[in-house]
């Protein structure tokens, strides 16, 4: 708690000396400035939530949000009872967790390697090249992947054939497809995600390192005991935020890469919604699933935050 003596000396007014009001007075200028942000926030984030009541309605465009008839939980029931429900949940969660398990360590690994690298040119080059794929849309990624993975003309299969093996049709094999999704997404986002960890690493007090070196710590020990723990709060935050959106598994990527032979392992909630909710004008259904995802994510964040806070002392809130 901050000391109050300074404040009391400056403002010799009685009655309003309670910290709450002092803070409010001092901070009202920021509240004022932030009020624009808050208004924006309410308008752009909460009005759509109000609009989202169509999840409980049979949405008719002409009647609008308020005029459409209520159907209670019917949309949710339609979703949960649909033929592919469990498959969708399984696929969605599989991709989210898979991508998290692959990409966060990869990004940390990359950022720490860059941070520890003493060769200026190597570091600069890798840093610059690694973030490039982030800018490639999944449409072109699809073309790149095809050039690598095509069973008849792809580089990887050329190599496999050279070594005497049978070419694998990666994009249409149910066993291979999930790996391709996770690995290609990791590749694409690794450099970009590393930026945030790199920024955090840059913020570590150099004196900590000097102290460690003076005490004879090796580079490995330095990384293990200082570097990584120092960015733990950022890692935790990133993990928790990603958990909160666990049911968003990357629509654009799946939409570009999937095809009928692998629907059973590729169809995620969002692609199903796209076909069922959007293209068939069942917007109540689409919105209901959005709410469903949100509730699920909320539960997950609350539970994980508790657990992680208990273990490591820092959490999202």
């Amino acid at each position, binding site marked *: 708690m901050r000391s109050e003596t300074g404040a009391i000396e400056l403002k010799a007014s009685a009655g309003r000396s309670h910290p709450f009001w002092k803070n409010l007075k001092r901070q009202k200028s920021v509240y004022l400035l932030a009020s624009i942000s808050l208004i924006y926030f309410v308008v752009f984030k909460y009005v759509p939530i109000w609009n989202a009541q169509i999840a409980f309605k049979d949405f008719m465009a002409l009647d609008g949000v308020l005029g459409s008839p209520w159907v209670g939980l019917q949309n949710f029931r339609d979703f949960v009872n649909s033929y592919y429900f469990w498959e969708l949940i399984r696929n969605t969660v599989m991709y989210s967790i898979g991508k998290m398990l692959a990409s966060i360590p990869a990004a940390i690994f990359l950022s720490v390697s860059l941070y520890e690298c003493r060769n200026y040119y190597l570091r600069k080059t890798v840093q610059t090249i690694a973030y490039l794929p982030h800018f490639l849309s999944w449409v072109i990624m699809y073309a790149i992947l095809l050039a690598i993975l095509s069973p008849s003309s792809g580089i990887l299969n050329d190599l496999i054939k050279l070594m005497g093996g049978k070419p694998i049709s990666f994009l249409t094999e*149910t066993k291979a497809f999930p790996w391709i999704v996770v690995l290609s997404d990791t590749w694409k986002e690794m450099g970009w995600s590393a930026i945030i960890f790199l920024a955090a690493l840059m913020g570590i007090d150099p004196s900590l390192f000097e102290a460690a070196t003076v005490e004879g710590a090796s580079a490995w020990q330095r990384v293990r005991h200082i570097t990584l723990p120092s960015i733990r709060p950022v890692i935790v935050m990133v993990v928790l935020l990603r958990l909160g959106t666990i049911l968003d598994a990357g629509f654009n990527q799946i939409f570009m890469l999937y095809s009928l032979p692998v629907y059973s392992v590729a169809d995620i909630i969002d692609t199903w919604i796209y076909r069922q909710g959007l293209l068939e004008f069942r917007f109540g259904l689409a919105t209901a699933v959005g709410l469903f995802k949100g509730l699920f994510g909320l539960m997950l964040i609350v539970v994980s935050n508790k657990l992680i806070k208990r273990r490591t002392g820092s959490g999202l809130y």
Partner: protein
Amino acid sequence: MKKMKGILFCFVFALLVAGSAFAQADKLTTIEMWYGAAITEAGPPPDDWVVYKLLREKFGIDLKITAEPSNENDQDVKILAAAAANQLPDIFMVRRDPWQVLIKQGLVAPVDDMYALMPNRAPNHFDKDSIAFTTIRGKSYGFAFPGSLQKNEGLVIRKDWLDKLGLKMPATLDELYDVCHAFTFKDPDGNGKHDTYGYGAFVELFDQEQYLGRRFDPIMGAFGVAGTWNMTAANFGLNAKKPEFFEALQFVKKLVDNKVIDPDWPSLKKDDFRAAWKQGKFGVMREQMAALAAAANYAPFDKNFPNGEWAALPPPKGPKGLSATGIYDSNYRIYAVSPKAIKAGKKEAIAKFLDWMATDEGYKLIGWGVEGVNYSMDANGDITDKNVPADTKFSSPKGQTVTQLRNMVFYNSDLELAARYPYYKTANGRTLGPRTYLGTFQSYPWTNVTGSGTIAPSPNNADLKRYINQSVQEFVLGKTPLTKANFDAFVVQMDKLGAAAWEKAARQQMEDNGYLQ
């Protein structure tokens, strides 16, 4: 007195201004249209487009147009989102599925009384079939403009490969298989590498061409199961449930198992497929005549293989002697009008606009542009792009911007065909052009499924479609063994997902409208 004069003057002045403002407003009706661009990426017409001016002066119409996204899914999303917010434009092109949804929501207006206002359009654009196409429960909810040419695709085969291997044109399914086998394993391009295949395809699904899609229909047709629906009175229903379908799948599986079909077929997109045949990857395919033989499209293939030659191949005969290249239906583009536009009194203006487009003046302006600038007439009275500046001819990037609305006026007249599909000489001196193939393709057997385009979708449309199409692919690729038992189970599950009910409703609908054969 001076003051009075001043006030009077101001008053009169104000009246005049207001009057002219009202007069202006009276004169110009704004029509907002979302159209399907001929070639979206070429860009919209320039702001000083002669058609805009003409519409303003002649009819007092201020036309504002927006090109819809070229990808069909994006189109649907854009239209449906606007519909949900009740923000649809006055007139817009819409695909059948979303259009039917919009009708249910009351978001498209009935247009029965507008046909009479369009005398110029009636002869070539509106006939009994086209009006029936947009009629739901007795009211017409949009205009069906003629789509692209029917039966303009066909099987083609690398004649030069056949000659090199000393083979003749295959006539039956078994002979086709043998030829594909030879194309794959006997190095028909003579380059010593095992880089060629027999059949080439990709999954191209349309409403009436589901399951494995259009590119496999010549094979399915050999078993009498081309297309989604069987439209005969005796045997009406989804083709996927028929025993012949099982046999057809067996044949395709044979191609796949023996690797005589390009193995990329399940994951290729259209552009990749076209790039592949231009690089000589396979020797038998079903292709559209212009995609195959129009000068710009044939050129890369010609450069790579100056002695390469694609010959039209009649669809192979199956075990019972049946054959078909595929299906054909009446092919229309639907333009719908929003109820808001009717309420705003724009009905006559829209009708006048559409009607003008079909006059000789409108037809030429919108179809090709300005004579002398974008096109010229040759000695036969045909339209060509010769004798006009290269950067404004209608086939140039700039020229394409002024013909973006041509899909709304074309009806596949001879004039159009001659203009769009000129002949040219190939590298080895042959005369070639899309029309070389058109007549032949149209003469081959096709399965008539007229009317199936109006079948109302099943309530569980998306999931049912996915189940059927996914299962079919899994059979063909060997993920599910293609046994009679598995196939029967597949049919049973289809029914559980609503196929049986859908067939019943569809049959009733087809009977009511007299479409069963």
